[in-house]
């Protein structure tokens, strides 16, 4: 019995002595302790966590050669080989940080993103639809951001002294031709696409990636929703028309179809209009989208294919007074417009194994405008085909390389059927881009790219370099710098007159500071942009002569953005100020002038306030600029005059009586200010030698809107706030 006990004791002792204690300390590479690191003896249940000082200790019964693995959130896992022999093992490890794309530095120079997932964004996608005064127009919401100018008689996007044609618009990476509705001159237009199609957007006011080309000033990339949440029907009844949209969702796929009809006639018969409408604008549109997902991202390969088709038609007839016209001319020129537009795209993305990611697709835009100006019919057809294939390879978490190939077919034709005149062109453009992204750490990133292009019509090949770098400071603030060269072929109406025109050019330099902290966002950006090879001509814009590309100019300035969701309880507001100093020699100007679309000082304030007691969101926005330059032929020099200050205060009220019903009421320019965007002058002086003029003004003093939106689904909480 005794022997038995002794041998048992010995056995226990030998087991005890076979235990190896592993202890140590986990720090980062600066020596700061990492608490909560997971320390494991690989292949066993043995292990522990580091304490508040980074220290750890545990014992194991394993013997021989073993591997200790040390993991912590935000750091690269480290593995260390040890020998367990009963002797204590002490490990001191300094973990290297891993790149965390969600919190790492991002390049914010020029870029403003609306995204639900990322941190360094200025907007959430929902802001696009809830911004007062935007009336559900994507562009109008973007015009409350820095770097943009509101041009009230146009409605398109004007960025930093650039004209509207200098912005390229993409849906799921594929370019959209004629993204804005066709309209008569000085009648503002809006984006053709509803904001509730999109889950996010990327708006760049300069210095953008080599992925985007043929745009001198700006790129706007809109990304459509992936899989909708549920089956639902959305009904909208508005003062301007109505529509219905049906969504069907399967496990891996979804289908959405919608149709809308708008007619401004009833509204315009009730509310006094400044414009002389013979037939108020009316339009219909219908669209269908299909999505199919495959694979499982957790198991490696997965992907997404989206198909989207949009078609619409619209028309209007307006009388426009002619400056200097005699009283007998009555209503002036009669402009009748009939537009048909279609856009379709198929886009695909696929993540493969070994860090490969592919995306691309094909898009087609077709726009036909039938203008009848008095008795003269004009027919214009614009077509754009864009094909794109991109491969991205992540060589490591730090380094990735993107390679893309694009093929564009752009064609334009215009005809005067009565005179039996027609001219047209077709241009093939092939582009290649390559872009390398390198994270030196979570604080420092550098991106370099090169975009090469060739146009068959211009018979020109070009190479444009792009570069950007960003550095994040200790306090979460970050600086970014971007520079690049950008090319763009002249507008189709000029190109069709002289098809051998070559690229216009711009060079951007941008310095940006950006900080998001505690529900407050501040962004400051200064820029310098040089324009070259701009189109110049003699004579009137409607009939240009001696077209050359001797124009040049610059735009420089600084803009600020501040957003605060915290300081005033329940209120979310942002303030923007943009200063633009721009001069260019272009079109038929003899000297460098400040363009009419580049007011010097621009500002906006947007505020949203949620009143729970009223189940309502109240919104207001105010936009302001220091006046539009215009040319008065009665005075010496060019573009020597300026309109009075522009100012517009809008209010909106969204009321949710039930979870699935929204009533939305909005009014622009509530103060009833008479804004003037410039003056039109007679082409010839009258008998006293004076050029007569007419102001370019608003279509009506105010624009009021009321709408009822109902969502039908099994999920009673669903509503279509996105439609506002």
């Amino acid at each position: 019995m005794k022997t038995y006990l002794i041998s048992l004791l010995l056995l226990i002792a030998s087991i005890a002595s076979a235990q190896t204690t592993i202890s140590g300390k986990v720090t980062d590479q600066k020596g700061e302790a990492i608490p909560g690191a997971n320390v494991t003896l690989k292949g066993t249940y043995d292990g522990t966590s580091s304490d508040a000082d980074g220290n750890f200790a545990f014992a194991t019964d394993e013997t021989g050669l073993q591997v200790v693995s040390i993991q912590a959130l935000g750091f690269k896992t480290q593995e260390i080989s040890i020998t367990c022999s009963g002797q204590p093992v002490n490990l001191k490890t300094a973990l290297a940080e891993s790149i965390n794309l969600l919190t790492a530095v991002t390049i914010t120079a020029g870029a403003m993103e609306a995204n639900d997932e990322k941190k360094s964004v200025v907007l959430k996608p929902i802001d696009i639809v809830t911004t007062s005064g935007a009336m559900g127009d994507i562009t109008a919401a973007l015009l409350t951001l820095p770097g943009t100018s509101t041009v009230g008689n146009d409605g398109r996007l004007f960025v930093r002294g650039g004209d509207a044609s200098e912005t390229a618009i993409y849906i799921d990476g594929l370019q959209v031709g004629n993204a804005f509705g066709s309209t008569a001159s000085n009648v503002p237009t809006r984006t053709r696409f509803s904001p509730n199609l999109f889950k996010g957007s990327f708006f760049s006011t300069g210095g953008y990636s080599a992925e985007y080309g043929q745009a001198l000033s700006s790129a706007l990339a809109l990304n459509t929703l992936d899989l909708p949440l549920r089956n639902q029907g959305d009904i909208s009844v508005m003062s301007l028309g109505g529509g219905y949209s049906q969504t069907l969702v399967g496990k891996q796929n979804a289908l959405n179809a919608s149709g809308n009809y708008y007619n401004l006639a009833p509204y315009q018969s009730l509310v006094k209009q400044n414009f002389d409408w013979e037939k108020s604008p009316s339009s219909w549109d219908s669209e269908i989208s299909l999505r199919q997902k495959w694979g499982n991202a957790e198991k490696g390969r997965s992907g997404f294919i989206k198909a989207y088709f949009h078609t619409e038609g619209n028309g209007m007839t307006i009388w426009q007074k002619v400056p200097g016209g005699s009283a007998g001319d009555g209503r002036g020129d009669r402009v009748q417009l009939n537009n048909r537009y279609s856009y379709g795209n198929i886009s695909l993305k696929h993540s493969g194994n070994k860090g490969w990611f592919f995306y691309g697709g094909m898009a087609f835009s077709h726009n036909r405008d039938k203008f009848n100006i008095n008795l003269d019919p004009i027919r214009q057809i614009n077509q754009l085909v864009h094909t794109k294939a991109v491969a991205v390879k992540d060589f490591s978490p730090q380094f990735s390389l993107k390679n893309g190939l694009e093929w564009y077919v752009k064609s334009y034709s215009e005809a005067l059927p009565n005179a039996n005149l027609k001219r047209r062109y077709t241009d093939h453009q092939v582009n290649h881009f390559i872009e390398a992204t390198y994270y030196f750490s979570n604080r420092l990133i550098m991106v370099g790219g090169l975009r090469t292009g060739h146009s068959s019509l211009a018979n020109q090949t070009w190479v444009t370099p792009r570069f950007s770098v960003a550095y994040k400071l200790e306090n979460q603030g970050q600086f970014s710098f971007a520079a690049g060269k950008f090319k763009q072929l002249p507008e189709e109406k000029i190109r069709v007159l002289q098809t051998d025109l070559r690229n216009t050019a711009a060079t951007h330099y941008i310095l940006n500071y950006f900080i998001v902290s505690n529900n407050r966002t501040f962004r400051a950006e200064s820029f310098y942009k040089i324009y070259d090879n701009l189109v110049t001509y003699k004579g009137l814009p409607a009939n240009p002569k001696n077209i050359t590309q001797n124009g040049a100019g610059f735009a420089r300035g600084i803009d600020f953005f501040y957003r605060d969701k915290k300081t005033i309880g329940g209120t979310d507001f942002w303030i923007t100020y943009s200063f633009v100093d721009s001069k260019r020699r272009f079109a038929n100007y003899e000297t460098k002038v400040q363009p009419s679309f580049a007011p010097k000082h621009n500002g906006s304030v947007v505020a949203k306030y949620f009143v729970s007691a009223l189940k309502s969101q109240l919104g207001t926005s105010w936009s302001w600029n220091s006046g539009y330059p215009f040319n008065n032929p009665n005075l010496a020099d060019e573009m020597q005059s300026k309109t009075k200050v522009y100012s517009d205060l809008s209010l909106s009220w969204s009321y949710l009586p039930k979870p699935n019903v929204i009533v939305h009421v909005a009014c622009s320019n509530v103060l009833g200010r008479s804004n003037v965007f410039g003056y039109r002058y007679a082409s010839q002086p009258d008998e006293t030698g004076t050029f007569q003029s007419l102001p370019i003004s608003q279509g009506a003093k105010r624009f009021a809107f009321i709408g009822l939106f109902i969502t039908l689904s099994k999920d009673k909480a669903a509503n279509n706030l996105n439609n506002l």
Partner: protein
Amino acid sequence: MKKLTIILALLFLNVCFAIAQDSPYQKAMKKEIAKVIEADSLPELQQSANAFARISELNLKEWQPLYYNALAYTYQGLNATLTSDKKDEALDAADALVKKADALSPNNVEIVTLQGFVIMAKLSADPASRGQSLSGQVMQTFGRALSIDNKNPRALILMAQMEAGMAKFFGTGPEKACGLAKQSADIFVAQDEEALKAAILPTWGKSLAEQMVKNCK
């Protein structure tokens, strides 16, 4: 004969013993599950998360370690002392783990419920800017969980909490939310907790339901 009975009895006992004997996996899981339910500090929750991470390394086909690992991170993401960046970091970790668990065991009511819980925690990290985009997703995810098993007490109580928030906002009265909470509490009372624990299935949420039922009265 007597001897034989004894031998048989002993054999039987032995067999029973062998059946009742937990594998190292089960032993480790039971120990850590007990700990994570009790954990009430960030370091404890991180220790739990780490422990479950160690267990899943060795049991690549089991969804439960991933599930509890995600749960430990979700509790961290709900900790009021953390900044919203830190909450997001924990919740992103939870989200990745839930997705892994879902890949191992698709259409599992517990995993889908936890997925909803993670999104709910993301929403509460920044309700002002995420409410609009995430509340629909949360409701939809709990709805999916209940369509797999409408008697899951965790899906019911979390859905009840969302419904209570909605009802408060729209002033529609708490009846629906309280009904769900009552249903959940009754199921918690009726279930055989020991059997669930033995099968390392989730049992948490009872106090949540009891609390809400109390508030409803």
